[in-house]
């Protein structure tokens, strides 16, 4: 199928990656439309980064088919990188060069003339509000600035699609907000964005649609609100319990057929039928309700949290 002029920009079919016996990505299929922001949400080890690396041409496919703007990633690896901007998980900045030189060298290597690379670097620095850091040593930039510079670099060639692996992991709240703002502006400009994240608030804030990944598979796919409504119901219960009675309470919740997450201070309870979990009859606890979120969806589907390690 030729997607060159269609509205599907990324088309992954039965995408598979194995390392020896380990299956990192287990036959996933998804499509990203033009101008869409699509997220892969899942814990560490879910297969998000491997998927991103396959799309970026940094990891050969074990099986399946993958096209970007109609270009086959396996057969035309070089052509794909003409339409794709990639931000890898580590920023990959060149600490021997200034901020602006990082951009110019990348732009020139990617095919811009020296003069165009220089002009584009100025424009991109201005867009990312890094103009006064143009001459700065990369080592002396804050984590948030380095991240924005890495995103700026992917932007040097005006790509149709940006692939972002964990855009805000390791950033402080202020840095995160800045990156979110700029991604949102890029999105308004019509760029197609594929991003991975293990932050459910990030996925909810930025993504039009997302795939929830676990153990190399997609568990569910849809718009954030839709996923929450479908799989976690409108509200979850939060149960506070005195330590002595904890086991009894947990047993009661389990026997009643609810999913729960025991986070120490609070036990979060979701119902499987989309209704608000009814905890009438549970004694000696304080119960409050809050609106459900994507974390609850993941809990309901995978039986564990996004932030637990494998």
């Amino acid at each position, binding site marked *: 199928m030729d997607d060159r002029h269609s509205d599907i920009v990324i088309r992954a079919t039965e995408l598979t990656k194995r390392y020896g016996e380990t299956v990192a990505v287990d036959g996933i299929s998804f499509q990203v439309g033009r101008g869409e922001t699509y997220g892969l949400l899942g814990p560490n080890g879910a297969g998000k980064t491997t998927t991103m690396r396959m799309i970026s041409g940094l990891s050969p496919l074990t099986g399946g088919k993958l096209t970007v703007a109609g270009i086959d990633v396996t057969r035309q690896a070089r052509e794909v990188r003409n339409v794709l901007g990639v931000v*890898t998980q580590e920023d990959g*900045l060149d600490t*021997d060069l200034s901020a602006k030189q990082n951009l110019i*060298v990348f732009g020139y*290597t990617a*095919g811009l003339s020296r003069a165009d690379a220089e002009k584009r670097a100025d424009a991109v620095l201005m867009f990312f509000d890094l103009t006064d850091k143009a001459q700065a040593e990369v080592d002396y930039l804050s984590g948030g600035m380095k991240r924005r510079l890495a995103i700026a670099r*992917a932007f040097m060639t005006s790509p149709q699609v940006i692939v972002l692996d964990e855009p805000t992991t390791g950033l402080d709240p202020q840095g995160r907000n800045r990156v979110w703002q700029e991604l949102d502006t890029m999105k308004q400009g019509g760029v197609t964005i594929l991003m991975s994240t293990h932050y459910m608030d990030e996925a909810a804030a930025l993504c039009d649609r997302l795939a929830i990944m676990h153990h190399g598979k997609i568990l569910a796919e849809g718009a954030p609100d839709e996923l929450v409504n479908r799989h976690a119901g409108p509200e979850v219960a939060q149960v506070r319990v005195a330590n002595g009675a904890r086991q009894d309470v947990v047993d009661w919740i389990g026997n009643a057929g609810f999913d729960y997450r025991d986070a120490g201070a609070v036990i979060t309870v979701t119902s499987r039928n989309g209704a608000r979990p009814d905890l009438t009859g549970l004694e000696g606890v304080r119960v409050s309700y809050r609106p459900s979120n994507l974390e609850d969806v993941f809990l309901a589907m995978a039986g564990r949290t996004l932030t637990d390690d494998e």
Partner: protein
Amino acid sequence: MAATATAYVAGVRLRSIAGIWYRHALVLRRNLLTSAAWYFVEPFVILIAIGIGVGTLVNDVDGLPYARFITPGIIVGSAMFHAIFECAWGGFMRIQKGVFETTLTAPVSTREVAMGDMAWSMTRAILTAVCIGAVAAAFGWIDTVSSVGVLLAAALVGVQFGALGLIFAALSPNVHILSLTFTVVASPLYFLSGAFFPISVMPDWVEPLAWAAPLTPSVHLARGFVTGELGMSHLFAVLYVFAMTAVLFPIAVALLHRRLVK
């Protein structure tokens, strides 16, 4: 602003190599003063210390005053150190910091990454040869005509040891193992290369080993340009360097690819 540079030669995208070379040139420009130490001070001291210091104690060697005898070897040896340092140490750092990975997100192949780095290690080899050659020429230890030949020998060494350096960069799991490149590989090769004494003075069993060592033929070649007595052995030296580079280059590319694309 679309990407426009699409010139290819035998499937090699020229802009990839130019971009990597440009990166290295910018780094050199940013660090001009510290680089000057590398390019001038160290070889200058070696040249003076050994050429004059040891030279006053030593008679002519192979018909050359000692300082003239060692100048081509020091030039070619310095070319080796520059090439290895750039590609082994620098290459390892660029792997660790994700700089190569970033380059590969542009329309660049692993082979072109290796070629770009080797183009620069050749450039560094030529630069150091010019710097030392200028100092030696000021002392009258090398003449203009033969220095052109020595420069060529240095350029070949730059490419040959650039490939070798990339192999070490791609193989080393950490800096401790990487450092063996200098202590166990580069330094012994330098002192066994015949740069400081004729190979013929070595014990019989060492002699063939010394001749087979990767730097020795290039020292022989460079010295041939200085004495002006060029023969078949010098042609073999050129062929040896070409053959070795032809073997090392695909290995370097394969190892880099294994390290970067997985």
